[in-house]
Structures are given as structure tokens and as C-alpha cells.
């Protein structure tokens, strides 16, 4: 089954509009997912994000997740056997993936309302992309449109559904909720959610949310500070023009200014993290973001882009990638940090080894073999950026002069 079990599209039967969160938690796709994890299966597309990290020898999000069950990367088998969650794993294994627990850690996507059209994003997470794809007549966009007149499927606009989900969450033993958009800060439902939980007295909750950093809303920050712990994760790729080129519609200087505003609220309960999605458009300048994190003592949480495939770093010819190598080597020499795998990636005191690990990740992707279908993907990439650059009036030749031969070859 290749369908994403929790994709919030209207044609997915495993959807909060058709079942409760409790029912979904023990639905067939979730049971299948657990059994596939027991079998250590590389399950596309669901597992790809983690494998993309692990293929470069790095620690992935699933590693961060299993750390919460006291399973160590370095001593996987022993720590798994002694994990406080072991009995639950055993129950799940012996009952075809059933869980005897209730969900305590939620990820909520608040529709696709967004003010940016990032080159790696899609219509289901950006109304800007959905609108542009509608202009282009692209089928993918119409699939997620769902409701005529709306720029993409947004489950949060249905008041009954929204209230049903809120009420259920308030009764679950949930400890942590992670929000993504669209853009959370401009999505009215994000603040509605905070108001609901404040009224319900659920100050025990931990929140984290991803924002593109273009807007800063002090009212939201004040509300967030009422809760147990808050993680603010700002999406930014580099501190150079490649960030603007990648995150179409953003103003990098504004985002950096807003990060500073968030940092004014930094305390034991509120943390600020940058959250890049490393890809071939940003690998050259990604070290500038690492330097920025070093300068600000900032944590970094990121992912390697594997989808769309055309944006994978390993599509770039190796001779071009090698030109990008030295700043990462210099940074690693300067940081002189041990390669630690079992780390608390949310503890700001660990910013140095975490920055070093991201420099290693970048180097891993620079040194890796090229994709077998790299040429085909580069052709798709040039078509993709050419189309978008006409909309946003960007010039790839000016941003990536070292790509001249590729851009010429595929008719940029």
C-alpha cells in the first residue's frame, strides 16, 4: 500500500472526517505500518525521509522518536530489550500491529493556507502553489482542491469537524503536539487551537510548530508561553540569495529579523530551532545557515529532500558538488566535535554537536554517488525552475553560475 495513511485528502478513507483519532490509531494502515517497522522494511514513501538521512550515516527522525522509548542508536538491540515500552512493542507484534496505548504524541497539519510557494513544496501544503498550478492546469492541484472555490483541501474550515477533533484531543492523554501548515502563524485555526486548550486548562501540553518565519505574531507567542514547553521551528535554508530562490516569496532579511524576535522570548520553556530541507538548490550555501546557528547558539532540525526526486543533492554532477565541499570541512575542523548519535536534539546546549552533525550530513550528500537517473532528474529540475522563475522573476543563471552547462543543456 503506497498511500500515505494520514494524508488529509478527501479521498483517503483513513481521515479525521471519517473516523476518530482513537479509531485511526488502530486502523489497518497504522497496524500495517507497525508490522512493517518490525520487519525493518524500507517502505515507500513513508519511510523515505528517514532513510535519506540514514543512508548518509546520520541520525534520522525515527531515531529521535525511538529515543523517547529509551532505545539507543548505538546499543539498539540491548536497549530495545530493556525499553520501558518493550511490553507494548511485544503486544503490538503479537497482535498484528494493534496498539494497547492511546496516542500521546500528535502531528497536525493545518491545511495548505500559505504565503509562500517554495520550490520543494506541493499544492497540499501551499495555497500559493495550488493557485499557480490551477493557472498551469496541473492535475495534482485539482486532486487536492476538493472543494470548488477553495485553494486546496483544508479540513480545518469545517467547523463541525474542527470542533470534533479539538474535543477529542482535549480528552486524550496527549503530551506533545506538533503543527505544520500551510503557514501556521497566519492560519487562524492555530490560534483557535491555543485558545481552546487555554480555556480547557491544558497547560500541561507541549507544542512545537513549523513556520516559514515571514510573519511574527506577538499575541500568539504570549499564548504559547502559557504552556509547558514550546518549540518554534523556522524554515530557512541559507542566509544567502539561495534561500529566497528556494522559498519563493520570502524575504530572508525579514525571516532573520523574526528569528531574533522569537529569540527575545527564549527561556527554559521556549526554544527556537531552524528547520532547513537540504536539497541541490541549497547545498552550496547551506553552510551559511550552519554558521548562523553557530553565531546565535541555535538548534537545527532538518531533513534531506528526497521528494520531489529532482531536488535531491545527488542529482548534481559530482564535480560541481565537490566545489561546495571545503566550507563544511573547515566548519567541522573548527567545531572539533565528536560524532555523537544519541543526543537530545531539542536541548539547546547541544547546538555544537548538532551543527557538526548537519555539516557531516552535507558532506555525506556531497561525496555520495550520483543518482542513476540524475540526468533525467536534472532535465525535470530545469523545467521546474524555469517555469517558476518566470512567475517570480528569478534568474537561475545569476544564482548558480557554476551550473551554466546544465542550464544550457536543458534549455533554461
Amino acid at each position: 500500500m503506497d498511500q500515505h495513511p494520514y494524508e488529509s485528502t478527501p479521498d483517503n478513507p483513513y481521515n479525521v472526517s471519517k473516523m476518530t483519532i482513537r479509531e485511526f490509531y488502530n486502523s489497518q494502515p497504522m497496524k500495517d505500518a507497525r508490522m512493517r517497522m518490525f520487519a525493518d522494511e524500507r517502505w515507500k514513501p513513508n519511510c523515505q525521509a528517514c532513510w535519506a538521512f540514514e543512508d548518509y550515516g546520520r541520525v534520522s527522525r525515527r531515531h529521535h522518536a525511538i529515543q523517547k522509548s529509551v532505545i539507543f542508536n548505538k546499543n539498539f538491540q540491548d536497549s530495545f530489550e530493556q525499553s520501558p515500552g518493550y511490553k507494548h512493542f511485544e503486544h503490538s507484534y503479537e497482535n498484528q500491529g494493534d496498539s494497547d496505548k492511546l496516542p500521546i504524541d500528535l502531528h497536525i497539519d493545518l491545511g495548505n493556507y500559505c504565503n509562500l510557494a517554495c520550490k520543494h513544496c506541493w499544492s497540499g501544503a501551499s495555497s500559493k502553489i495550488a493557485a499557480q498550478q490551477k493557472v498551469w492546469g496541473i492535475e495534482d492541484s485539482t486532486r487536492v482542491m476538493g472543494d470548488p472555490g477553495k485553494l486546496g483541501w483544508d479540513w480545518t474550515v469545517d467547523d463541525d469537524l474542527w470542533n470534533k477533533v479539538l474535543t477529542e484531543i482535549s480528552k486524550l492523554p496527549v503530551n506533545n503536539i506538533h503543527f505544520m501548515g500551510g503557514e501556521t502563524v497566519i492560519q487562524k485555526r492555530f490560534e483557535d487551537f491555543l485558545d481552546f486548550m487555554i480555556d480547557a486548562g491544558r497547560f500541561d501540553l507541549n507544542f512545537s510548530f513549523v513556520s516559514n518565519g515571514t510573519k511574527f505574531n506577538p499575541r500568539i507567542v504570549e499564548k504559547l508561553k502559557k504552556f509547558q514547553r514550546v518549540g518554534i521551528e523556522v524554515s530557512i535554508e541559507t542566509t544567502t540569495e539561495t534561500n529566497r530562490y528556494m522559498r519563493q516569496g520570502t524575504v530572508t532579511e525579514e525571516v532573520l529579523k523574526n528569528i531574533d524576535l522569537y529569540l527575545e522570548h527564549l527561556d527554559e520553556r521556549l526554544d527556537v530551532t531552524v528547520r532547513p530541507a537540504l536539497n541541490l538548490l541549497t547545498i552550496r550555501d547551506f553552510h551559511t545557515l550552519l554558521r548562523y546557528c553557530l553565531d546565535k547558539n541555535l538548534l537545527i532540525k532538518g531533513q534531506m529532500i528526497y521528494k520531489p526526486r529532482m531536488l535531491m543533492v545527488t542529482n548534481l554532477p559530482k564535480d560541481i558538488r565537490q566545489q561546495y565541499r571545503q566550507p563544511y570541512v573547515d566548519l567541522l575542523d573548527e567545531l572539533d566535535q565528536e560524532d555523537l548519535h544519541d543526543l537530545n536534539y531539542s536541548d539547546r546546549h547541544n547546538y555544537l554537536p548538532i551543527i557538526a552533525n548537519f555539516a557531516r550530513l552535507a558532506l555525506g550528500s556531497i561525496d555520495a554517488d550520483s543518482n542513476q537517473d540524475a540526468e533525467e532528474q536534472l532535465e525535470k529540475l530545469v523545467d521546474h525552475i524555469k517555469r517558476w522563475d518566470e512567475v517570480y522573476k528569478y534568474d537561475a543563471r545569476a544564482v548558480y553560475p557554476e551550473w551554466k552547462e546544465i542550464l544550457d543543456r536543458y534549455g533554461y
Partner: protein
Amino acid sequence: MMLERCIQNGRKYWIDMDTRVKVRLKPLTETRAPRCEVTVGYITKMLELDQEQWIDIQIHPDRNSTVDIVVKHLGKTEEEFKSREELAISVEEIKINGISDTKFVWAGKFHPEYPRWEEDKGPIDTHYLGFNGEWRLTISIPAYTWIHKIQGLGWIYD
């Protein structure tokens, strides 16, 4: 390893929590080799510490129990104190289930048997054992959960 196989193995270990503790001790001496006793749970080893060495002990404690890791400095005489020549033991490193962290050593305390001419200051935060007495670190079982907390690895699902 596939988790399926881990589940099969795990059944054997659910109650018996295999725990391996390695203690690295260094003699700091201008005279003889210091004498010491190293205890991990129910196993004790006596040794003359003539060189820096690892003491390796594996135990099988029960889940939810605690295990004391104790290094006892023994036999330093009044004459040896008065000679002012160094005769001490340093607990340099503790490795639990292959994981080492300086925080482990600093989580222990030294309970000296103060000589009669010294003021009794109670237990002290040091891993330098200049007096007779015992350095003690108590860990909870499973040791991985203890390590997770000491290393500040974050939220634990319970």
C-alpha cells in the same frame, strides 16, 4: 537486526536486565600500589592497583531494582597520611553497557573515612579517593533509562 528477532530475544531479558559495568581506575601514588575493592551489585573484586586498569563486571539485576557501583579505597595507614606522599585512587571513567560519559563519574559521591585529625565534611563530590572510604554511584535498572535521564536525552514515553 530486525525487530522481529529482537522481540524473540527480548522475551528472555524482560525480567533479567543484563548490565555490564566497566570502571577505569588510576593509581596516583608516590609509594606503593593502592588497594581497593570494586563492587557492582552483588559482585566484588579486590585488587592492588599497580597500574591504570579497567575492571569489567557483568550482572543480571531485576527490573526496577537499583545497583550500587562502589570503589572502596582500603588500607591507607596513619603513617602513610603523615608521610605526605601521594597515595590515592582516581575513578577515571565509568562505562555502562558500552556507553561512557563524564557525567557518570560526577554522579557518584565519595564517602571518606576521615582520619581522626580531619574535620568530618560528610560525602564529597569528587572521584579522587585520597582518604580511605568508598566512592558510590547508585544506578537504577534498566540502566539505559538511568543513562537516558543522566544524559538529558529528553522526554520518555511511559
